[in-house]
């Protein structure tokens, strides 16, 4: 029983640790009303848990669901389809 608890805990910790934070620097993001398209589009992505848009830092922060990730190509397409240009993508 003790071994089972340790195994379940390890799996849970392992699963939780695999969620990703993706910081995307974006050009052209000056209007909050227009940038709502970024939030709406990323929320349709199954891998995305939360989306934060920061006009001051020109940054879109994505937190993925456990064990999920989002390719750079998908991020660039979603932001491009919303009318903006990706400058850089950083993963933590």
């Amino acid at each position, binding site marked *: 029983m003790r071994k089972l608890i340790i195994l379940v805990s390890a799996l849970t910790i392992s699963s939780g640790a695999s969620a990703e934070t993706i910081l995307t620097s974006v*050009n052209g993001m000056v209007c909050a*009303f227009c940038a709502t398209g970024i939030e709406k589009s990323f929320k349709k992505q199954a891998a995305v848990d939360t989306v934060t848009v*920061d006009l001051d830092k020109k940054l879109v922060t994505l937190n993925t669901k456990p064990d999920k990730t989002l390719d750079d190509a998908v991020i660039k397409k979603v932001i*491009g389809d919303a009318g903006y240009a990706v400058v850089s993508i950083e993963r933590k």
Partner: protein
Amino acid sequence: MTTLHLRANRVWAGPWTCLLLCALPFSAAAKPISYVGGTMVMVENDETGNTLNIDYTFSPRAAAALYVKHEIQGNVFTAVGPQINYLVKRWNMPDGQGNVFTMSGAGTAIENSGKSHFAAWTGVLADYETRRIFTSYELRLMYAQNIETSVWQRARVGFAPYLANYEDLNTWFMVQVDHHPDKTHATTVTPLVRLFYKTLLVEGGVSTRGTAMINLVKQF
């Protein structure tokens, strides 16, 4: 005050205005293209007439739209028809964005008597904005067979009194100048306030002749 009241009534009264306002909150003061898969409903009520635009953006460069405008203060008619909005060019800069769009459509111009005529319209809209300043210029051509062939233009400048972030209420002070030679008054100047929060944008102003302006935009 009385002048304002009377002129405001002239804009607000009438079945078209009621219809447009009843369309709220599903209701063109914003860019004619939003994000791929997004729908935007825009209602404008000003001295030139009452406009309803419903846009669906199907590609990063194009949106399919329904355009309805009830023209007043001159030839009174309603233009209705499908429209294609196209992004000709966009400049995404670190601290600003510039765009050039075209909006073209064709349909019917309906007189108050109910008589219908062929109508076609096209326009170009250029804008540039930062988080602090906004400028735009729009040139429109309206052909309504046997009623009117007109060219009109609209320019806007504005500034934000504070830098609002994404989650904040955004406030802008703007001035809109319309030049429409076929209207009773060819030139109209309207100071206005633009407020938006998330997916809802509201604009209100009063022209120098005392006519009320109310615009609403909702993104879905």
